[in-house]
């Protein structure tokens, strides 16, 4: 104790007290978290403003004689005529390992009641994305544990892949499954404008499966001010950037950017910025592009870390041609399109593999997965084409019939329950079996049972093969021969078991 006092005494003795020079202003207008301040002639854009009583704001509109600012926190304490000071600082959030396993708000303050956060350092909320020199192309896969995604729309570390679809189509489920499947990747889930109950459920689920050990939740719920909802994704991104700078891999999920755009529209209209299409301000594209551009795969000289972004967009009646969806589609490196029709038809995840695409993820896919995915894509494409045609034809030639039957079985294999991610080696084995026709003789309704039993059998009797696929990351001839033998034996056993 005496050491602490002595240290403080020494610190105070060395302290050089300066005359404080400040730039001040006066609140002339206040409404819905947005204030208009007269004065503050020296304030810079995005500077943190001190409203007193522990309340801070952000200068966003710099005009001739006044400044438009957004407030973070309880703005009911502020009155017309209140004094505002410029701080000379830009908005920063705490970052570091201390945040892992915690639920924080848009300013990085804990809201989970687990006490103060020990931050490693502070990072600015707004930051220019890494340049070309510091980056390298995507080359490592980020396994989601979802067969349809890992095989057909692969995601690489450092990629930006959009998850788009109507409400209740399983967008958040894909994001949670991806978090659950991570082992060496730190995940940041940013909840924007969501129900607090939904966030609580999500935290409980992640805790239940032990995924909170590598996850940070940034929450700006529907009850939070629009300013906090606007800030949350940028704060989450800063937290992710810290891990990327440390040479680690991080994953950030923005759930969802439609609500983020809505909160930005509210803020902009209150700031009296001119509105454009659908009343969104002109810079709504830049809002999302500057956020998503911060996702990157750094080159080895710069640590080799990565920040993968999975933004989510909610569409209305499957309309992807609306303003915000088209914007985000054009910014990201691909999109996963989820359809309510597929969802209600029992295809879950309700991924429309026809229009979903990953522009750069293919480069990061493992050889083993690539060898089965190529055939899978082709089979599925042919199935989709023939399926529509077959609806009108009663008589089909055997080749067409086989392709349709194969397609049905592939669709069954790609179905997956929520919160049950599958490892890559298991995915490779299942997809190899179905694309090579080993499930053609199994009834469509029993395909999932077959797959489950098949994987269980391999796990029990041929664990070595699975671990070989996992370590070598490719399917060589020897492995294929072994797989052929195992699968043939299993098909026979399965058939006999079904007959009984």
């Amino acid at each position, binding site marked *: 104790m005496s050491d602490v006092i002595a240290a403080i005494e020494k610190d105070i003795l060395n*302290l050089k*007290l*300066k005359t*404080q*020079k*400040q730039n*001040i202003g006066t609140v002339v207008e206040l409404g819905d978290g947005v204030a208009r301040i007269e004065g503050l002639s020296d304030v810079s854009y995005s500077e943190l403003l001190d409203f007193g009583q522990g309340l801070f704001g952000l200068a966003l509109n710099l005009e001739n004689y006044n400044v438009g600012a957004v407030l973070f926190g309880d703005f009911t304490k502020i009155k017309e005529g209140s004094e505002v000071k410029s701080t000379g600082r830009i908005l920063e959030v705490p970052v570091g390992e201390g945040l892992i396993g915690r639920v924080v708000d848009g300013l990085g303050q804990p809201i989970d009641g687990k006490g103060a956060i020990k931050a490693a350092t502070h990072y600015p909320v707004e930051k220019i994305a890494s340049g070309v020199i510091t980056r390298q192309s995507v080359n490592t896969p980020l396994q989601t544990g979802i067969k349809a995604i890992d095989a057909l729309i692969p995601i690489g570390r450092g990629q930006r892949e959009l998850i788009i679809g109507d409400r209740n189509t399983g967008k958040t489920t894909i994001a949670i499954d991806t978090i659950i499947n991570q082992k060496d990747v730190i995940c940041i889930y940013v909840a924007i404008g969501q129900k607090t109950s939904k966030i609580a459920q999500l935290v409980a689920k992640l805790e239940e499966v032990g995924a909170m050990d590598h996850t940070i939740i940034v929450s700006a719920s529907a009850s939070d001010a629009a300013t906090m909802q606007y800030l949350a994704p940028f704060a989450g991104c800063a937290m992710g950037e810290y891990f990327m700078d440390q040479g680690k891999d991080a994953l950030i999920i923005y759930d969802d950017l439609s609500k983020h755009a809505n909160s930005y529209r509210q803020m902009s209209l209150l700031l009296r910025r001119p509105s454009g299409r659908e009343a969104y301000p002109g810079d709504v594209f830049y809002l999302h592009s500057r956020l998503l551009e911060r996702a990157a795969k750094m080159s080895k000289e710069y640590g080799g870390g990565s920040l993968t972004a999975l933004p989510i967009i909610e569409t209305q009646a499957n309309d992807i041609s609306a303003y915000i969806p088209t914007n985000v589609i054009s910014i990201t490196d691909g999109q996963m399109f989820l359809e309510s029709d597929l969802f209600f038809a029992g295809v879950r995840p309700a991924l429309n593999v026809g229009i979903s695409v990953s522009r750069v993820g293919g480069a990061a896919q493992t050889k083993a997965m690539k060898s089965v995915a190529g055939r899978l894509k082709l089979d599925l494409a042919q199935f989709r084409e023939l399926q529509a045609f077959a609806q009108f034809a009663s008589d089909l030639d055997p080749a067409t019939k086989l392709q349709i039957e194969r397609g049905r079985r592939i669709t069954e294999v790609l179905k997956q329950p929520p919160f049950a991610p599958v490892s890559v080696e298991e995915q490779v084995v299942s997809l190899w079996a179905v694309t090579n026709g080993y499930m053609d003789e199994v009834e469509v309704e029993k395909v999932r049972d077959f797959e489950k039993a098949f994987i269980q059998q391999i796990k029990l009797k041929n664990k070595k093969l699975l671990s070989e696929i996992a370590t070598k990351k490719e399917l060589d001839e020897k492995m294929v021969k072994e797989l052929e033998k195992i699968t043939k034996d299993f098909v026979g056993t399965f058939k006999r078991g079904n007959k009984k």
Partner: protein
Amino acid sequence: MKASKQLKKTIEKLVESSFLDGRMLESKVVKAVKVLKTLSKTESILALSEYLIGLKRIERQHTMYLETAIPFSAAQIKKAKKIIEKKVKITKVKMNINPDVLGGFKLKVGDEVWDETILSKINQIKERIVHHE
């Protein structure tokens, strides 16, 4: 109703011309008000209010506010004024006695504040203790 760009420019010019060396010229103000009164009723109300805001703003830029625990002597005020006048012409000095500042002074001109009070120094020490690592 919002003032048009043209009207805003005119008001700005009138405000600027109403001051000479930081001092408000009564004749110019009367003339400006007469000009603005010639506009339509709604426009003239709006223009007059904008004009008054402008006058206040410029006046504030040339007024020195001093906040102290005990009154400053005339010589002290003159000294402070002289230092400030290197940057901006001071036409008015307003004193505020506030024992809460404990000692020293706080000087405000326009948007700028120089805080040399004991209270501010104590706050700096307090900040250092709170954020001591």
